[in-house]
């Protein structure tokens, strides 16, 4: 239990003194995860809209598959991405292994199912009378989709927050794709794993607290948009 108290104290010290290594790791964590969340959102929200509003063969199966992928273990994503991005792998020429961009890509793959699935869920929950009203008022396709997204913005923002949270907390993909290289691909979760292995438990707790504070800050900012 000492570790937790010492950890809280260490977190305080690390933040106040703007410890350079911690700042480096934190900024990298933020850019990678925010970047991954943005890319995934840009891909998934339109995809989710399409799937929600269109009938096509295999739609139900697709939705089931998407929801099954919520349970995709991060280390499995990491392993598969490693095999793809490895020198020997099909995309080895991209030189993305052991880079931040590679880690971001891994996080995108990881959160694609969540953001897509929860977007579909958000839009399916919309009252069909709203949909019918908008169509009967003569909305173009573009206006239709925009109105639907705005109506469901609360739930869609939740999907994005969910994706962000999953990305910022994952460690399996980041370690396998990034390699936890100091100054290059070390992020909060991989640093916590390393410090725990070394035995610096209170530092691990401190980094965990910092990670949660960041998640809190980001969530609060998004909530302001959500509720406006």
């Amino acid at each position, binding site marked *: 239990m000492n570790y937790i108290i010492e950890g809280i104290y260490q977190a305080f010290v690390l933040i106040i003194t703007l410890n350079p290594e911690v700042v480096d790791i934190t900024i990298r964590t933020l*850019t*990678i995860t*925010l*970047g991954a969340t*943005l*890319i995934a959102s840009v891909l998934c929200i339109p995809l989710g809209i399409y799937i929600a509003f269109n009938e096509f063969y295999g739609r139900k199966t697709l939705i089931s598959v998407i929801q099954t992928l919520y349970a995709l273990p991060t280390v499995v994503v990491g392993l598969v991405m490693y095999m793809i991005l*490895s*020198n*020997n792998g099909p995309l080895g020429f*991209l*030189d*993305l*292994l*052991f*880079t*931040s*961009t*590679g880690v*971001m890509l891994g996080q995108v793959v990881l959160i694609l199912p969540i953001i897509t699935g929860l977007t579909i869920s958000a839009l399916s929950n919309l009252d069909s009378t709203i949909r019918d009203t908008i169509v009967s008022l003569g909305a173009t396709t573009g206006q239709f989709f925009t109105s639907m997204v*705005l109506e469901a*913005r609360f739930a869609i923002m939740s999907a994005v927050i969910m994706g962000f949270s999953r990305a910022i907390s994952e460690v399996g993909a980041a370690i396998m794709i990034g*390699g*936890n*290289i*100091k*100054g*290059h*691909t070390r992020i909060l979760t991989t640093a916590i794993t*390393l410090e*725990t*292995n*070394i*035995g610096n*438990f209170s530092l691990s707790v401190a980094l965990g607290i910092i990670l949660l504070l960041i998640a809190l800050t980001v969530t609060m900012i998004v909530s302001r*948009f959500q509720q*406006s």
Partner: protein
Amino acid sequence: MENKNFKVLAIFLLSAFVCVMLTAGCTGTDGSAQTATPTATAGQTVTATPAPAETAQKEYADKELLIATTTSLYATGLLDQLAGEFMNDTGVDIKITAVGTGTALEYGANGDVDLIMVHDRAREDAFIEDGSGTDRRVFGYNYFVIVGPESDPAGIKGMAPTEALETILAKGSEGAEGVKFVSRGDSSGTHGKEKALWSVAGYDYAEYEPVWVKEDWYVEAGTGMGGTLTMADQMDAYTLSDIGTYLKYQGDGTVNLAELVNEGDDLINIYGAILVNPEKYPDTNVEVGKDWVNYLITDGVQDEIKVFGVSDYGQPLFFPAMGAFDVLSSSGVTQDEISAPLA
């Protein structure tokens, strides 16, 4: 109301887009391919002396060296210290990823790194023999220890290493009170040493391990050294540990385990650096890799290795390989591996 939402959404997307562009820009250098070959002066540094550390030139300002190493070696902090100095002197960006020995060997075999630094002679030999690696150099060594509860229920204190393991096996399988052994159970160098010790004691690990795991006394952790030590501490069990992790955990009070068997040639732990074979993977940073390896076997670095850890732990964590041919030769280490610089 709708207009305001659009504006907010647009600003959010725009700023996020800018973030991503910045990220792509920042990380662009991480993934960049190799640039032009080093200048002619690089040739001068690849001789026995002086080492790159003594030439103040930054001839490698745009080069990287990607090294895969083991967690136990990395966790001591030695590599970060040496890499920092080398980076200052030569401008190379040294990137170190610390994984298990097995993973490091995989990375090397796939050409994902330029060089590996590991501690499992048998697997290193196989790695070199199948053409994945060349030019091994040995830069340091230390000893594993068998640690366990202070009470030492199996009475192994002071025994020779294989005798100690045999005693634990004998007493454990007959169900003696409190006799347990925790194994790393992963692809680590430490686990490799454990298997080698069992082999010397006459037990083929592949044959016996499936039997032992079913008995209460043998616990296969499947985790890192820290986790294994913690488990041994919690279960009052014996385990094989590298000296660095043990001293750290014991010194911090994270575990309370006694050093019971710490002498014996069988416990020797030899660290080697192996280049990934450029004939197999032509993109490997061979020049920089050779300079780094040569750096490791210079007098200056060997002296640094000799005193590393003394201020924190009261004893050195490593012994320099230089001058230790007598100790290392029985494990198959050649004089060249200890002192001949790579051309």
